[in-house]
């Protein structure tokens, strides 16, 4: 606590920014990548042919036939229809046998490759891939980092008094840390409303988990009862005994019925509980690509097609719709490619603000603290938190591409590669002088980015088949690689290097 408001905010911004900045960079980087989770999964699954225009009715029939043949006794089925972003048909079954398969939406052929794909980055972004239902620690850390981002944004406006005046200034040669500070300010101001909105809406997505004290006050069953009532998610869980055998109609029958209520051709996925039993329930979910809404319409029917429960957004209370609307700003499934590119670039600007802030922290204190143990630790963690996170992210894609399709626990290997590479980056940063560590790790990221599209020569196939989604991913890797190469080059040149030590401190 300092003597004036500005000094109090300086302390908060500086130290809060440092402590949470290490986490925040990873959250922002993976969140930005996750904007294109569907496209990245497609890119990582070369077995899915390019240019598919899957027909929803045919795909659903293929999924149903597969489940009837391979999981006739399972008590819960899920069929996820292909989309233009992720054109594989997905079938999942649970209870009395469990499995999940991706199928070619036109031929029904199994896609053997198991991959977390782009959703891995979504999980790191949400809870550091820690499965928040079993262990919410990662989820709370991400939420606190989000709150710290809000606090840092507000305190940053107070602290950096001239940020709006200095918006168009970039002065790499005026003082050792001036360029980093200018970069921190410019990226911070340009996307400030976006960053504040994302920090708030990110937590608002799962408010009942972050602040679990509300629901028990008015729901005797606590959060689970609240979620059942608010989201009508009653039927996707298997409960009680299965009924007697009784035929269920083809899935198209239920989908047609649901679409008569929420719009033709709008089904995204459906669950079937206890298929082929008297107590069968089919729950159909609407897509949300053209709606700014986190919640989606859901229709649950019994085996005769009688609607037994429905959640239509237009029938919900204004507050429910408002929360759903605001939360969907974070959960970007609307707006198409233009909105996704905006989110991707603005998210990367948030990561850049954090990275520049971390460098400014050390640049400002170099004279007084150089050689001290705590300063050396901060420098090493800075390198690993920023450059190391970038290497780990690209290493995930390399591991995905290089792991044999038939390898045991194949989908775990790239995940493990991500964490191992990140840990290795920290060790490397601790062993090398900070400046060399920055240069080497940025250069390695550049090499990995530039090489990723050429692994197994797939870029040439993408070009030959004019598969524009995959070509766009290839091009983004190359553009990213060039940016990292430029950053590595700049960091090793004298004007930038003045902010970093040339040699390791004794």
């Amino acid at each position: 606590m300092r003597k004036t408001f500005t000094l109090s905010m300086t302390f908060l911004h500086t130290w809060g920014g440092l402590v949470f900045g290490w986490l925040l960079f990873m959250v922002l980087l993976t969140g930005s990548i996750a904007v294109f989770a569907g496209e990245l999964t497609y890119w990582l699954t070369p077995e899915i042919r390019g240019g598919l225009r899957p027909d929803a009715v045919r795909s659903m029939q293929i999924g149903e036939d597969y489940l009837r043949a391979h999981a006739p006794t399972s008590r819960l089925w899920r069929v996820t229809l292909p989309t233009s972003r992720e054109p594989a048909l997905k079938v999942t079954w649970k209870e009395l046998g469990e499995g999940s398969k991706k199928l070619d939406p036109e031929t029904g052929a199994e896609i053997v490759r198991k991959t977390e794909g782009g959703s891995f980055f979504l999980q790191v972004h949400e809870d550091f891939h820690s499965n928040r239902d079993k262990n919410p620690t990662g989820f709370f850390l991400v939420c606190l980092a989000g709150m710290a981002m809000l606090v840092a944004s507000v305190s940053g406006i107070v602290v950096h008094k001239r940020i709006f005046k200095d918006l168009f200034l970039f002065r790499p040669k005026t003082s050792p840390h001036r360029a980093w500070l200018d970069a921190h300010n410019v990226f911070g101001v340009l996307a400030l409303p976006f960053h504040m909105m994302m920090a708030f809406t990110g937590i608002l997505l799962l408010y009942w988990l972050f602040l679990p004290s509300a629901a028990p006050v008015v729901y005797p069953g606590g959060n689970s009862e609240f979620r059942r009532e608010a989201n009508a998610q009653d039927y996707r869980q298997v409960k009680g005994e299965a009924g007697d055998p009784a035929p269920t109609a083809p899935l198209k029958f239920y989908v047609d019925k649901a679409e008569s209520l929420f719009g033709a051709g709008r089904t995204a996925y459906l669950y079937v509980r206890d298929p082929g039993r008297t107590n069968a329930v089919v729950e159909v979910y609407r897509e949300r690509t053209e709606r700014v809404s986190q919640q989606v319409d859901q229709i649950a029917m019994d085996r005769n097609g009688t609607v037994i429960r429905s959640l239509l957004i237009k029938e919900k209370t204004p507050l429910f719709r408002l929360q759903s609307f605001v939360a969907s700003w974070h959960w970007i499934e609307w707006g198409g490619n233009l909105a996704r590119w905006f989110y991707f670039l603005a998210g990367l600007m948030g990561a850049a603000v954090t990275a520049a802030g971390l460098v400014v922290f050390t640049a400002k204190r170099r004279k007084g603290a150089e050689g001290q143990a705590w300063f050396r630790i901060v420098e090493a963690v800075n390198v690993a938190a920023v450059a190391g996170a970038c290497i780990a992210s690209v290493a995930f894609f390399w591991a995905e591409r290089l792991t044999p399709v038939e390898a045991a626990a194949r989908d775990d290997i790239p995940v493990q590669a991500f964490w191992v590479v990140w840990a290795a980056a920290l060790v490397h940063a601790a062993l090398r002088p900070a400046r060399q560590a920055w240069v080497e790790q940025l250069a390695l990221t550049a090499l990995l980015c530039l090489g990723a599209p050429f692994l197994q020569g797939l870029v040439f196939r993408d070009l030959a088949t004019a598969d524009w989604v995959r070509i766009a991913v290839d091009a983004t890797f190359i553009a990213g690689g060039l940016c990292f190469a430029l950053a590595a080059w700049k960091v090793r040149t004298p004007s930038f290097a003045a902010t970093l030590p040339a040699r390791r401190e004794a």
Partner: protein
Amino acid sequence: MPAAAEDRPGAASIVVRTAAATLGAYAVAYFLTSALTGGLFRLGLDRADSVMSASSIALLVFPAVSIWAFAERRLVVVAAAPVMTALILAVLSAVLHP
């Protein structure tokens, strides 16, 4: 981070202050959510809406309390909030679900 005058606090001091502000603000938000939910429900709001609106408000209060705690030197008060929270929640719970 500007070149404003700063002291060089020890690592323990930084951790304690940051933790006090963060956890204290969380505790305040946690308490506020329960109290607001109960209050809004009593006022006649739908119970799901009470939960949603109370949580949304509390999420805005969280960063505001963190900043206030630093600016106004009320870290001790904020850090004591978990105890207050537990007490008031117990009372609320007894009143609403006897």
